[in-house]
């Protein structure tokens, strides 16, 4: 099977700036209607690497929004 390029999804109307996070916003709140599962409490041993990943993701979401609006 010949490999084709992955075109990617468009995400029309999504404001990706919503996913730019600092420490405070990178958290969850309850409030769903159909509560069926659980996520354990945060434990912070991975902080440093995860913060680096968060920085990279923040840059990516900024760029993604700029590209979508241009």
């Amino acid at each position, binding site marked *: *099977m010949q*490999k*084709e*390029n*992955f*075109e*990617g*999804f*468009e*995400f*029309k*109307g*999504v*404001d*990706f*700036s*919503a*996913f730019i*996070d600092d420490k*405070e*916003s*990178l*958290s*969850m*709140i*309850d*409030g*769903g*209607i*159909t*509560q*069926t*599962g*659980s*996520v*354990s*409490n*945060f*434990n*912070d*041993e*991975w902080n440093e*690497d*995860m913060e*680096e*990943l*968060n920085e*990279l*993701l923040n*840059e*990516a*979401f900024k*760029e*993604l929004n700029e*590209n*979508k609006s241009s």
Partner: protein
Amino acid sequence: MKTNQVSYDDIIEFFKIYTNYLDYVLYVSLTKKGINEKTHIYLMKVFVILISKENISNKKIILNKLKQIQNKYFNVKYLNLDLQDKLSYEEIVNIYQIQNSVEEFFYAISIFKKHNNKYLKQGIIEFHNFLAHLLVAFTGQNRDTNYKKAINHLYRGTIDCYKSIIKNKCDIDCKFQEEIIKIREQEMKNLGVEATSTQAKYQIVKSYKNIVKKIIM
């Protein structure tokens, strides 16, 4: 020049990492160590960056960073999962089956996040259930059932985001009362109906979305 676009191989790489994460989480979540809820959010965000059609300069760097994190923290094999080797290009090209559901989910969760400055836990949980079914579908194992279940989890995550917004903004006698009751009636009519089509479900999504748009925009 689109030199930073992601290939199907990169998506396979993401799901190989996710297989390891799933293996780790399935065991560790049942111990006192627990799991890091932020990792759930990060994986969702990496996924959407990877599959976006937009050219983003650090897509590959993000994937490499995730790979480093995998090697450092969750490159384990607690469970005897025979999934990684079965991930194949022939299966992953079917990813377009879930395009509409994925786009609707990210629209809903971005609206929720924008208005609450936090993620909805149930939405994140549904997204991870979605990824688990998608992973197995990508191995070809019970493909059709797993696609259906993957889409169902996204559907639930999507309407949970909208319902939470409505719940927090609407009093019992709010001006959307009639519309809310109509959607609830529709949901009840579909309850337990195995064959409820994706189209019918997304009609409900559309109705909730319309109310939320009126509430917050």
